[in-house]
């Protein structure tokens, strides 16, 4: 079972990201069992939110919040901090939406190179470049992040992610933009792997 936590802010689509990822997991045929849910609270726009996603080859029975994740995905850098790093398993990965490179993030937050892989991608910039924004002209990053995930050790390919995005939003120019963003994010992601030696 692989456990993933999404960090974001109310309205960014962290919960939807979890749902699309679940869809992609099922489409990939590698993870037939999924369970995705937010940490429910008093939801409001802009408040820090968390969404949990478990994908597995075997049925999932655990129903509690994810305490330690294989992947922590941060959609908004302003909610990132030590509390996020503390919730990543050994040999887990951090995926951060930032303009910084992984090495700088590692240095800044003192992340153990033997324990946590750091992946960064500037999803916000990609969204602005492609004009992938919502009505309030805010960047949409919850679909492009799936592109980054397909570059990880997850057995979910970019084609699975694309199909999941189409399933979610239907065919159309907006969906195409989302897919383009995912592809671009996959290309541009910077990875600093765990050093095993």
């Amino acid at each position, binding site marked *: 079972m692989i456990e993933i936590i999404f960090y974001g802010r109310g309205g960014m689509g962290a919960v939807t990201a979890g749902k699309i990822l679940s869809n992609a997991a099922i489409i990939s045929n590698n993870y037939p*069992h*999924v*369970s995705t849910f937010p940490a429910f609270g008093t939801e409001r726009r802009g408040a820090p939110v968390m969404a949990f996603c478990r994908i597995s080859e075997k049925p999932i*029975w*655990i*129903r*509690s919040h994810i305490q330690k994740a294989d992947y922590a995905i941060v959609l908004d850098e302003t909610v990132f901090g030590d509390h996020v790093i503390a919730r990543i398993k050994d040999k887990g990965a951090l995926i951060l939406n930032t303009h910084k490179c992984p090495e700088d993030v590692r240095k800044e937050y003192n992340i153990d190179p033997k324990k946590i892989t750091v992946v960064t991608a500037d999803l916000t910039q990609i969204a602005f470049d492609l004009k992938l924004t919502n009505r309030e002209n805010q960047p949409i990053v919850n679909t492009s992040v799936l592109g980054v995930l397909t570059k990880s050790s997850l057995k979910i390919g970019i084609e699975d992610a694309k199909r999941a995005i189409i399933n979610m939003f239907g065919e159309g120019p907006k969906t195409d933009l989302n897919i383009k963003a995912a592809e671009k994010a996959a290309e541009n992601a910077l990875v600093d792997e765990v050093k095993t030696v």
Partner: protein
Amino acid sequence: MPERKVLTGNHAAAYACKSVGVEVVAAYPITPQSPVVEKISEFVESGELPNTQFVTVESEQSAISAVVAASQMGARVFTASSANGLAYMYEILCWAAGSRLPLVMCIATRALGAPWSVWTDHQDAFSVRDVGFIQQFVESNQEAYDTVLMSYRVAEDPRVYLPAFVSYDGYILSHTMMSVQIEDDDKVREFLPPLKPHIHLTDFENVHSVNPVTPPGLTVRPEGNTPGYYEFRYSMQKAHEYAIEVIEEVAKEFETKFGRAYGNGIYKPYKADDAEVLIFAVGSVASESRGVVDTLRDEGIKIGLISLKLYRPFPIQHLRKAFNKAKLVVVFDRDVGYGMEGILAAELKSALYAADHRPIIRGFIVGLGGRDITADQLINGVKKAIEEQDNREVQLDTHVDFIGLQLNELGFKKEEI
């Protein structure tokens, strides 16, 4: 072709209503139930449910009244609610059961106020224990979908004619997305033949008044003696007693047709065959316990789980068999019978009182008002119960244990008292 979808528990229940072709739906919104009826109203709006009437009402009491009336017209009906909304339905729930109407209703379980809470526990579902409904708990969204299908079949069986609840944990299932197989409508209709109602208010040639004042004694009428209130209630109790075999039969048929089984339709055992210690729980607590069983098995403890699916009628005979080898039963209740103990613990004790084999039963309260239940909490509970099982003083203690309290953090410290 059956379809695999990623759905929340609420939407899984809505798809089940679509599969069975419900005819009248009335509901009033309350978190976390609302999305189930919102989805059904989408189906009605889009024409996917062309023969369904969605009735908007101004309260939960009206919602259940509307579906009770529609059911008396011979329609297949559905409603859903949670917590305080369910409490507001209470009066008409008794009318639904008292009239033996085969309606199916979902409860997205939620803690009852006060204080105000929207998060899950099982208090609301247990608070309607004695209205006369069949009551079931589920552990996954697929089970929610399947149990709604089976419930219509059971409720509409002329040997039963009882309304049924399908309870799934608020948020933990109601808002959690899982993969759910949606079956073909045709196949579902084969499994669930059209409803044959026993009250026909639309039969204008033979008008009857339904549920008039029914005196304590029999009434002598031209058509013969008619039953008093007492006979109606006896009949309902017997209907519950014999519903158990119908529920088992339907579960078997469901497995043959759709290939999915939930234990025997009554309870779901997990690694229970050789278990000396058994956990007893329902819903989310039971599913969380599965991982706990695995962990403790790795530590060498012979432990298993009996996850109760059918809560009313309470399957006493089945439970006596299920627990006939266990030395210790640990019951985790996400509810309290205030002034007594956890409701499941109390009822299990009552069920096993006359059994040949009576294990020690130790109850704990967990996760009220949505407090996250972690595997560690449950493991601690089991270990505590194992440690104390031979301690007679502990067994005689009637004080109830709550697991996962955070009193220390509130400044209540034992060492400072």
